[in-house]
C-alpha cells in the first residue's frame, strides 16, 4: 500500500506543479458552464422583426404592439412595400417579417376570418421555426383576447405544458452535457497523456522494472483524476444550482454514483488510448477526435439523436456519453430514481468492464 500511495502522491505533484494542467483540470468546467450559460445560449430573445402593415387600423396596431412588447421580439422597422421585406432579410437586419393585409380589422369583425403572413429567415431553420412558433402563439393570444369569452362554434384548444423545464431554459440541456464533456476530457485525455508521457520520458520502463505491479501503476495513475473529477462534478453542480438556477430534482447520491461510474468508463478509455498511443500528441489527438467529437455530436447534447439518420443513431449507442447524458438528464432534471435509469447504468457498467479488460490486456502485452 505504501508503494501505491507514494505513486499517487507523485501524480499529485505532477498535476499541481503544472499550471496549465491545473487550469484545464479545474478551470475548464467553470469556463464551460459560463460560456454555455451566458454566451452560447440557444434561447431566442429580442429577435428583430419588421412589419409591413397594409391595414393601418386599430387592430393591426395593437397586434404589432403585442409582438413588440413580448420578450422574444423587437420591432426593427415599419416597411412600406413587399420589396422592402426581401431587402431587410438580405441585409440581415431582421429575422422575421409580419405582413398584415388591408382590411385587417374589417375581416376580423365581419368575416370572422383574417389573415396574417409570417415570413421567417430559414437559413437557420431551428431559429426560424422557434420564432414562427412564438409569433403564432402571440397572435393566437391576441385573437383570444379579441373574442373575449365569445365562443366560436367549434374550437380545439391545445394546452401545452412544458414538463420539467417550464421556461424552456437551455441550461437544463447543457448542464448534463457539460458534465459529460468535462469528465471525459479530464479523465480520458489527461490519464492517456500522463501515462504516455511516462512512456516518452522513459520513466515507465523504470516503473515496470520496479516491484510495483502494472495494475497498481495504472490504478495509481487514475486515482488523482478520479478525485479531481469529483471536485469538478461538485463545482459544476454548485454553479448550475446557484448561478444558472437549474435545480437538482432527483437523488443527489444517485447522481453522484452514476457520475463516478461514467468517470471510471472515461478512465478506462484513457488507459486504452495510452496503450495504443506512442506520443503525447497522438494520445491527445485520439482523445479529442475519438472521444470529444462523438460526445458533442452523438450524446444528444447539441443535436437530438432522434432526428439523426438510422445508421448514426446506431453509432450513437456506442458513445458512453450518450448514456450518461440520459442518466443525468433523467435524475437531475426529471428527478426520477434508479428504476428509470437501470438500463443506461447497465450499459455503462458493461462498457466499463469491456474497456478496462482491453486496457489491462494491452498493458500486459507490452511487458511480454
Amino acid at each position, binding site marked *: 500500500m*505504501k*508503494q501505491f*500511495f*507514494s*505513486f499517487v*502522491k*507523485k501524480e499529485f*505533484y*505532477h498535476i499541481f*506543479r*503544472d499550471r496549465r494542467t491545473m487550469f484545464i483540470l479545474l478551470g475548464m468546467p467553470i469556463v464551460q458552464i459560463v460560456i454555455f450559460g451566458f454566451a452560447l445560449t440557444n434561447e431566442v430573445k429580442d429577435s428583430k422583426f419588421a412589419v409591413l402593415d397594409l391595414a393601418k387600423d386599430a387592430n393591426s396596431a395593437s397586434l404589432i404592439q403585442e409582438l413588440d412588447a413580448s420578450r422574444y421580439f423587437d420591432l426593427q422597422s415599419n416597411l412600406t412595400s413587399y420589396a422592402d421585406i426581401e431587402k431587410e432579410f438580405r441585409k440581415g437586419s431582421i429575422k422575421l417579417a409580419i405582413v398584415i393585409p388591408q382590411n385587417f380589422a374589417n375581416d376580423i369583425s365581419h368575416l370572422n376570418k383574417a389573415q396574417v403572413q409570417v415570413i421567417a429567415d430559414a437559413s437557420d431553420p431551428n431559429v426560424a421555426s422557434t420564432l414562427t412558433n412564438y409569433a403564432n402563439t402571440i397572435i393566437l393570444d391576441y385573437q383570444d383576447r379579441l373574442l373575449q369569452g365569445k365562443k366560436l362554434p367549434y374550437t380545439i384548444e391545445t394546452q401545452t405544458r412544458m414538463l420539467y423545464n417550464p421556461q424552456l431554459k437551455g441550461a437544463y440541456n447543457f448542464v448534463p452535457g457539460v458534465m459529460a464533456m468535462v469528465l471525459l476530457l479530464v479523465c480520458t485525455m489527461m490519464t492517456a497523456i500522463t501515462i504516455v508521457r511516462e512512456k516518452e*520520458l*522513459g*520513466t515507465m*520502463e*523504470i*516503473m*515496470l*522494472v*520496479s*516491484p*510495483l505491479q502494472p495494475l497498481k501503476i495504472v490504478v495509481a495513475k487514475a486515482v488523482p483524476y478520479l478525485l479531481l473529477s469529483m471536485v469538478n462534478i461538485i463545482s459544476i453542480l454548485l454553479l448550475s444550482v446557484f448561478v444558472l438556477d437549474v435545480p437538482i430534482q432527483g437523488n443527489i447520491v444517485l447522481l453522484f454514483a452514476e457520475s463516478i461510474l461514467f468517470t471510471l468508463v472515461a478512465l478506462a478509455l484513457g488507459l486504452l488510448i495510452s496503450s495504443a498511443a506512442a506520443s503525447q500528441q497522438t494520445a491527445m489527438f485520439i482523445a479529442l477526435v475519438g472521444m470529444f467529437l462523438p460526445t458533442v455530436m452523438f450524446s444528444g447534447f447539441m443535436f437530438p439523436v432522434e432526428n439523426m439518420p438510422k445508421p448514426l443513431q446506431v453509432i450513437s449507442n456506442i458513445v458512453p456519453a450518450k448514456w450518461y447524458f440520459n442518466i443525468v438528464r433523467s435524475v437531475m432534471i426529471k428527478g426520477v430514481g434508479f428504476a428509470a435509469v437501470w438500463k443506461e447504468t447497465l450499459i455503462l457498467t458493461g462498457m466499463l468492464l469491456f474497456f478496462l479488460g482491453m486496457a489491462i490486456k494491452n498493458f500486459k502485452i507490452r*511487458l*511480454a
Partner: protein
Amino acid sequence: MQHNKAITVENLTKRFGNFTAVDAISFEVDKGEIFGFLGANGAGKTTAMRMLCGLSLPTAGKATVAGFDVFKQNEEIKRNIGYMSQKFSLYEDLTVKENIRFYGGIYGKSNAFIKEKTGYLLQHLHLEKEANVLVKELPLGWKQKLAFSVAIFHEPEIVFLDEPTGGVDPVTRREFWNMIYEAASNGITVFVTTHYMDEAEYCNRVSIMVDGKIEALDTPTGLKQTYHASSMDDVFVQLARKAVRSDG
C-alpha cells in the same frame, strides 16, 4: 536463496517473428563484478538486458538473476535489482528529495530508512543545498549521478545500467565511474552497456555482442591479447566489422 553467481545465462534466445534478436547467448556474472555488455547498435544488447530485468519474456533458454528464474520469479527479481535506462529516468518536475522519496516508496522502503539514506545520499553527492530544487534545474552530469544513486537506493544485489553516460562530459563520466566502483566495492553487481570503449577498460570483464551472439568474453587485458589490439577500441572494431546486420 543460496547462490554464488549474480547472473547465469544459458542459451538465452529471443525471437520476434522470424528475427532472432538474441541468439542462444550464455555467460555468468560473479557477485560484485563490473560486467561490461558491449555491442554495436542493433546487436541485441538492449533486448538481452530487458529479458534479464523482467521487461521481456525470453523465447528459449535459461537464466537466473540474483538466484531467481527469469521465467517464473519475475517479482522476486524486480525486488532485487536496480535499473537505470539510457533515457534520463528522474522526474523533472519533482525536487531532488521528492524523487528519492518516491523511488524509495515504490520499493516499499520504510520512512525511517528513506529519511536516513536520503540524508546520507545528499551529503555524499554534495546536493544538500539542492535538496528542494526541481530536478530540471540541475546540470545533466548531476542528474545522471543522482539517477544512479536512486537506482541503487534500495540496495539491490544487481544494478543494470543501460548506456548510463550518454551525452555526459569526460570529467563527469570519470566521476560517474568512481560511483560505480564504490557500488561494486559495497557488493553490488554492476551490469553495464556502453558505447564508450574507454569505459570498457574500467570493467572487470567485457562481453561483445555481434548479430545477437556473444563473440568475445574476457577481461579487457585478455581481449586485447587475443585480438592483438592496443586498445578496446581496436578489439571492438575488429569484431563489429563481422556484423551482417545493419544499424538500428
